[in-house]
């Protein structure tokens, strides 16, 4: 049994709003990363959608930024227990990116510069549930927070919102990505507290 440290409370502050179970409210924006911040120049950046054997669509930064954008305000919840409410982003909906794609492959593996991956059911990234975000709080997304562009899927734990995203691969079966293959939940619904793979 752990020894309780007299007078120690950690960094947490009292939660006032309704949060998913086990979360605490933060007003800063912690930077979590499994590697060095990649610095991707915009003239080399691209986003590709493939089906495992061929590329279905590709955008460079110029053609990507010509797509219609949205500004959204969402709450985000990290599996390390911090939640940040009312975060404001600008990005391109996955509905727009997937618009011309006809597929019966039900899963997607999102891929990032710096070799991070995360898996999602395709039905969780369509119907206004996911964006490729390039602005946070009105300013260009900082590299340490995933800039030039990151995936944003606010209804799931924030490890699913892959930073430095560069594309997605459609898959017939669900396969675990970077954290999902190391003990984290394959789906990750914060409201059901689906943190770990033993649930």
């Amino acid at each position, binding site marked *: 049994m752990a020894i309780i*440290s007299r007078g120690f*409370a950690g960094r947490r502050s009292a939660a006032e709003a309704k949060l998913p179970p086990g979360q605490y409210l933060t007003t800063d924006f912690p930077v979590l990363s499994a590697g060095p911040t990649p610095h991707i120049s915009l003239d080399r950046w691209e986003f590709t959608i493939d089906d495992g054997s061929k590329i279905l669509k590709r955008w460079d930064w110029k053609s990507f930024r010509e797509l219609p954008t949205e500004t959204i305000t969402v709450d985000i919840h990290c599996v390390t227990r911090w939640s940040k409410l009312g975060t404001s982003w600008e990005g391109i909906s996955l509905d727009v990116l997937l618009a011309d794609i006809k597929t019966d492959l039900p899963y997607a593996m999102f891929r990032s510069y710096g070799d991070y991956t995360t898996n999602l059911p395709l039905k969780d990234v369509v119907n206004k549930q996911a964006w490729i975000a390039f602005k946070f709080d009105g300013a260009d997304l900082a590299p340490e927070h995933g800039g030039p562009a990151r995936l944003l899927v606010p209804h799931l734990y924030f490890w699913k919102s892959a930073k430095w995203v560069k594309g997605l691969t459609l898959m017939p079966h669900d396969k675990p990505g970077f954290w999902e293959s190391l003990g984290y939940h394959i789906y990750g619904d914060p409201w059901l507290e689906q943190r770990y793979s033993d649930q």
Partner: protein
Amino acid sequence: MTWRSAKVVELRDETATARTIGLAVRDWPGHIAGQHVDVRLTAPDGYSAVRSYSIASAPNSDGRIEITVERLPNGEVSPYLTKELMVGDDLELRGPIGGWFVWRRDQTEPIQLVAGGSGVVPLMAMIRSRASAGSSAPFRLLYSVREPGAVFYRDELQALSGQGNSVVITYAYTRMTPKDWPRPAGRIDVELIATGTWPSNLRPTSYVCGPTSFVEHATDLLIAAGQDRERIRTERFGATGERK
């Protein structure tokens, strides 16, 4: 390696922001200079935080160790350890940890210690280990700090550098120097390595410790001065010096 309980038996300020904590550790197996402990703090609701701290004291057999903790501005654990913790409190710790960044008393070759800020802590354990063993291994310390008030163990280092069989100490001040200091404030550089460290032909073993950017910079300088990469051991304390 299990978590053990330790009782705070002494508290001693080193600087305005750093404090040495003396601990009596239940069933302490002893340690080698350079090793560290992981300290775990647990809040009443079960939330816990773990941080690594280098052991500052020399190996001994009385079950007591010392760690020196620097208070980091946005730290979660260091403010508690440097301001809240009292003599008589209990801490949980795990260790000793590490077998690479260590100095063993049977080493006789010249030793070059390079410290950036709080990186001096494990190197001080090596200096103290050498002293308590009566070793005559040639030791030099290059100690880089922001300003004079940030030096840890000042009096003890002064005493050790004044004796025979002494440790040769070179200070480098990066932001503010003492009055009439011959070298202007700045990071360590080629010239300081040339005058303040063992020449490479002596084939010393070097130990470099401090914030990550300091360790990378100092290591590059040592290699450029002809030191063998295989003989340089490093321990990084992260961007701000917090090891979590």
